[in-house]
């Protein structure tokens, strides 16, 4: 515990030092304010934006989309993972695609989706799910591979059906691996939604950043970037905390 606290402190000191160095470099003119503004100015601009309420609709839209993309990727990825795991030949056929999936820039299909569905939410949701779902499928397959075979027999002794076996035994038994998939799905979903909005979208935080960039409005642009950084860090911190808690429970507090 003492070691963790020390590591946490070192981590905080490193972050604070970097922010301090950036602040100093900006304030002394070492970095041109037309390129980067001081972190304190970013925070102040963000506070003003949030207090004005002008961001509320975009925040709700972007975070809602991220939530939707992540939820769809997790649920569909888990279901697809279970189905593929149950069909070894299909899995054998798909394995090369999974292995090379992230070597292909899925984002190149975003313009195609816009051409098909227009400037609506659909292309963003589809590109987000396409980016995140495979991480969840791979994590589900890895997790199911590691479910002890004896649990299948236990399920049959308890006369559990397929769905009950999947939800009550396979899901929790594979949970550590699924959680890795969930963390990746959240990250990929976040990146995909912001990037899609940034490239072409009528609204959203990504669109806001793109507009601020085009308008040379550094205060607004960096305030929005800071906001997304804070949200992403908070989400990852919560997921990491949950992961550690579950791991500690499974390992008898030795994690």
């Amino acid at each position, binding site marked *: 515990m003492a070691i963790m606290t020390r590591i946490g402190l070192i981590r905080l000191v490193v972050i604070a030092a970097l922010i301090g160095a950036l602040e100093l470099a900006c304030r002394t003119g070492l970095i041109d304010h037309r390129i980067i503004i001081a972190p304190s100015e970013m925070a102040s601009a963000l506070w003003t934006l949030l207090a004005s309420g002008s961001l509320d609709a975009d925040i709700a839209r972007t975070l809602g989309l991220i939530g939707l993309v992540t939820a769809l990727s997790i649920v569909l990825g888990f279901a697809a993972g279970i189905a593929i795991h149950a069909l070894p030949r299909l899995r054998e056929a798909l394995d090369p695609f999974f292995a090379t999936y992230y070597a292909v820039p899925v984002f190149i299909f975003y313009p195609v989706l816009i051409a098909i569905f227009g400037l609506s939410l659909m292309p963003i949701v589809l590109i987000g799910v396409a980016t995140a779902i495979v991480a969840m499928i791979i994590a589900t397959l890895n997790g199911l591979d590691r479910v002890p075979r004896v*649990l299948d*027999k236990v399920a049959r*002794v308890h*006369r*559990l059906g397929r769905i009950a076996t999947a939800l*009550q035994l396979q899901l*929790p038994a594979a949970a550590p691996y699924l959680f890795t998939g969930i963390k990746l799905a959240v990250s990929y979903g976040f990146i995909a939604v912001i990037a899609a909005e940034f490239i072409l979208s009528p609204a959203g935080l990504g669109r806001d950043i793109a507009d601020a960039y085009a308008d040379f409005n550094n205060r607004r642009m960096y305030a929005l970037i800071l906001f997304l950084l804070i949200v992403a860090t908070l989400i990852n911190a919560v997921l990491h905390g949950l992961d550690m808690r579950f791991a500690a*429970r*499974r390992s*008898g507090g030795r994690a």
Partner: protein
Amino acid sequence: MNAAPVPREVHAELKGVTRIYPAVPGAGAKLPVHALGPIDLDLVRGEFFAVVGPSGCGKSTFLEVLAGLQKPTAGSVSFEGKPVGGHVPEGIGVVFQEDASFPWLTVWHNVAFGLRRNGVAAAEVRRRVEDAIAFMGLKDFAGAYPSQLSGGMRQRVCIARTLVLQPRLILLDEPFGALDAQTRLLMGDEVLRLWRRTGATVLLITHALDEAAMLADRIGAMSARPGRFIEIIATGWPRDRDSTIVGEAAFGEITGRLWERLRSESLKALGHSGVSAMAAE
């Protein structure tokens, strides 16, 4: 060694049971594997029956066929007069050799799993779980996770999870195989205590002759693959026995007789594994 007087009501019956695993060329099994049988056996209600035999002789296949986890290739299995065919009937509980505890649940919730699944009322779940946990000596660990327990205690959790469902036929597939000798003796005492209290029929699969000799009313000695019963020995132990009988002369006689029957079968089993030179000695 006279057989102990046991009630003669047939609880489970196997008639001409054979299990042949089909060839799976892609998975490396180019020829069908005749694993078991033909086997005929009547399990008498309330008796403790042990099955011993060399490694790979089909003991676990026998248990899984009896439990309904596998369908026999030929022959029939019945439990309480009803056919068992590819599904586990209500009233049969199985404890496996592998650790089958659920690491994500506490001991209490592990034991309660089947009851909740069956929709038993909360008060009844609480009563039966606490009773089973106390019976298995896990009262102080009800809130612990399996990872915080020893291998023997985890196996007790699995036994409690089976016991709490009040099965009438309990199948134990080498449940103490991974435990040290002393713990196995003590766990044997607990199984005997459980058997006496529940009045259930118990079938134990084991590779340990002393374990079978100490626990069972009858012991089926199984041949090398394909597994068949080459002799069924009645031990004649009183119902209220415990592990202290290992010091009795009759205990040595039973284990000696078992070994006499199984030695050549074990050598055959080794020959199956390619150690034919040893078998020839």
